[in-house]
C-alpha cells in the first residue's frame, strides 16, 4: 500500500484554507499518510528572530493557529502525522500553541515532538565554515548577526516519528526533508539506499511549494490554462515501497496536475540536475521521466540517488540597513513625459538632499520595471506611447533610516512641486535583512528530537496518574 504525502502550505503567507481539502482526501483514502506545512523561506527566520526580540513568546509562524485549527483534530483522529517547519526561531513556542489548540479541540493527549540542532548562532564562530560556491558576501560581525541555521536532514524528524509523535515541529530543515521523514519512518528504508532516498526527497521537492505542482505559478491564459485557480487543490503524492511516485490532488478542487506542471516544479530552484544537493542524498534527475496516467495523475520515474554531500548548508541572516519605496502615478495625455520629468526632478534633488552612498532605482511601471536593470536601460530604449497610465517608482537603500525616509519624502513632495497631475502616492520603508550561505561539517551538528510536554499536559498526566 502506498504512503500519502499531503501539502498544507508551501510558504509563509500561503492560503490558510488549503489543507482542508487535502485532509478530507487523505481521510477518504484510509491509507497511512502525513500532512506537511512548509512555511519557512530563506529570510523568514530573520523576521522571526526580530519578532522574538520584541516579544519572547513569538518567533514561530504567525499564522500557525489559523493553519492548524481547521485540520488538527481530523488529523489526530485519523492518524495523519503533521510535520511543519512552522517552529521557525521558536519551535518550543509553536509546540505550546499546538498543545493549547489540541486541548481546546478536546485532544489534550496529543504527542508533539520538537526537533533541535539547526540554530547554531551561539557556536557560529567556533565552526569550520566554507563559503557556498555562489556566495559573494563576507561573514558579518557579531553585532549585525540575526540568525544562523543549518538545513537539517530528515533523520531527527524520523526519530521524532519513532517516538510516536502526532505532530513534529521544526525550525530550519531542508524543505523536502519534511516529506522524506515520514517515508523513512513508514517504509524503514536504509539511510544509504540512495535511489529510494532520492525518490522520497523529490516527492518532497515536488510538494514543498504547495500548489506550484498542481496549477499554481503556472497559468498563462491561451497557452497554459488552469481551471479553478481560485480553489486550486494542493498536492498529494502517492509513494510506494520501491520509491515510485504519483503526483495528484484532492477530488473536487481546482488546478491541474499535468506533465507540464510536474516538469516545471521538478526543476524549480535546481541548478545542476545531475547533482541536486540535499542533506540526506545527492539527487540525479538526468534520467527522470514524467508520464500522465490519467487526468490529474502523473507518475515520475527514473530518479536516482548518490551519497549525500559531506557538508550541510547554513544560512546566516544579518542586519542589512534600510530600504524604502515610494510611488506616484501619471495618466492620460502626455503621461509618460510627465512621469519621466518627475524621475528627473527626483534624481536632481537627491544629489543635494541625500548623501552619495544612497543607492536609488527609478522604475516607470507600465513602461519598464521588473525586467529592467538598476540603471534603467530598458526604460531608455523602450518604444513609447505618450499617453497611458504610468507609475513612477523609487526604491532607495542606505544604512541609516533617515536617508531612506528623506528619499521617499522627496517623492511625496512631487504632489505639489512636481509635474502636473501626479497622484496616488504610497511610501513605506523597513529594515533589510541580508543572508549569506555557508557550508558546515556534518559532524559539528547535533540534530535530535524530544517530546514536548506543556504545563497543561503535565497536569493532565499527573491527574491520570493520581486517578490510577
Amino acid at each position, binding site marked *: 500500500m502506498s504512503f500519502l504525502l499531503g501539502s498544507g502550505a508551501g510558504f509563509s503567507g500561503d492560503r490558510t484554507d488549503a489543507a482542508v481539502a487535502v485532509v478530507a482526501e487523505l481521510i477518504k483514502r484510509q491509507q497511512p499518510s502525513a500532512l506537511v506545512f512548509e512555511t519557512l523561506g530563506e529570510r523568514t527566520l530573520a523576521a522571526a528572530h526580530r519578532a522574538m526580540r520584541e516579544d519572547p513568546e513569538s518567533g514561530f509562524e504567525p499564522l500557525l493557529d489559523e493553519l492548524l485549527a481547521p485540520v488538527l483534530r481530523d488529523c489526530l483522529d485519523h492518524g495523519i502525522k503533521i510535520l511543519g517547519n512552522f517552529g521557525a526561531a521558536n519551535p518550543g513556542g509553536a509546540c505550546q500553541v499546538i498543545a493549547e489548540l489540541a486541548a481546546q479541540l478536546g485532544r489534550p493527549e496529543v504527542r508533539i515532538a520538537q526537533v533541535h540542532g539547526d540554530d547554531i548562532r551561539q557556536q557560529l564562530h567556533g565552526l569550520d565554515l566554507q563559503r*557556498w560556491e*555562489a556566495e559573494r558576501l563576507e561573514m558579518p560581525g557579531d553585532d549585525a548577526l540575526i540568525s544562523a541555521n543549518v538545513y537539517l536532514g530528515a533523520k531527527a524528524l524520523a526519530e521524532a516519528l519513532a517516538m510516536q509523535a502526532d505532530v513534529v515541529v521544526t525550525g530550519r530543515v531542508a524543505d523536502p526533508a519534511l516529506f522524506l521523514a515520514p517515508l523513512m519512518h513508514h517504509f524503514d528504508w536504509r539511510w544509504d539506499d540512495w535511489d529510494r532516498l532520492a525518490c522520497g526527497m523529490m516527492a518532497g521537492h515536488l510538494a514543498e511549494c504547495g500548489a506550484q505542482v498542481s496549477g499554481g505559478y503556472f497559468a*498563462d491564459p491561451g497557452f497554459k490554462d488552469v481551471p479553478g485557480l481560485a480553489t486550486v487543490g494542493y498536492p498529494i503524492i502517492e509513494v510506494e515501497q520501491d520509491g515510485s511516485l504519483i503526483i495528484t490532488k484532492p477530488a473536487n478542487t481546482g488546478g491541474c496536475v499535468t506533465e507540464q506542471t510536474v516538469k516545471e516544479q521538478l*526543476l*524549480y530552484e*535546481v541548478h545542476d*540536475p545531475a547533482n541536486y544537493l540535499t542533506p540526506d542524498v545527492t539527487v540525479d534527475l538526468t534520467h527522470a521521466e514524467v508520464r500522465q496516467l490519467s487526468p490529474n495523475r502523473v507518475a515520475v520515474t527514473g530518479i536516482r540517488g548518490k551519497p549525500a554531500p559531506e557538508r550541510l548548508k547554513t544560512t546566516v541572516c544579518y542586519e542589512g540597513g534600510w*530600504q524604502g519605496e515610494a510611488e506616484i502615478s501619471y495618466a492620460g495625455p502626455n503621461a509618460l513625459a510627465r512621469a519621466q520629468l518627475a524621475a528627473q526632478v527626483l534624481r536632481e534633488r537627491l544629489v543635494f538632499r541625500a548623501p552619495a552612498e544612497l543607492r536609488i*532605482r527609478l522604475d516607470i511601471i507600465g513602461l519598464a520595471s521588473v525586467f529592467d*536593470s538598476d540603471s534603467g536601460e530598458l526604460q531608455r530604449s523602450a518604444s513609447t506611447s505618450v499617453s497611458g497610465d504610468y507609475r513612477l517608482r523609487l526604491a532607495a537603500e542606505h544604512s541609516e533610516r533617515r536617508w531612506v525616509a528623506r528619499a521617499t519624502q522627496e517623492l511625496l513632495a512631487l504632489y505639489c512641486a512636481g509635474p502636473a497631475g501626479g497622484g496616488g502616492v504610497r511610501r513605506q520603508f523597513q529594515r533589510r535583512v541580508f543572508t549569506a550561505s555557508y557550508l558546515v561539517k556534518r559532524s559539528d551538528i547535533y540534530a535530535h528530537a524530544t517530546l514536548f510536554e506543556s504545563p497543561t499536559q503535565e497536569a493532565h498526566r499527573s491527574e491520570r496518574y493520581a486517578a490510577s
Partner: protein
Amino acid sequence: MLQAEPTQTSMRAPASISLHQLAHARAGDKGERLNVALFAYEADHYATLLEQVTEERVLALFSHRGASRVRRYPLPNLAGMNFVIDDVLQGGVNGALNLDGHGKTLSFLLLSLEVHL
C-alpha cells in the same frame, strides 16, 4: 496561434516566432543565482530549442542585468533544459532594489526570445 503570413515563405528568411509560442518556463532563485527551466510544448521542437536557445544568446539577453555566466543543462527525457544564470538578480532578495528581487518574472524574459522554425 503561430504567427501569420504563411504565403510565399520559400523566398523569405525562415519565419521568426517568439519562444513563448513553443515553450514554457519557470524561474527560481538561490541568492544571486537564477535558474530558468525551459520545456518544449511539443517534443519535436526540443531540437530547435537546443540549437537556438544557446548559452550565448541567453547571456546576451540578460547582459543588461549584469549576468556573468550562463550554464545550460539539457534534459532530453523532459524535452527541456535548465539554465543557471549567475549575478543576474542585482543583489537578489538581499540587495535588489528591483520590485522582483527573486527574479520570478524573468522566465517570461527568456520566453521573449525570437526563434526560427
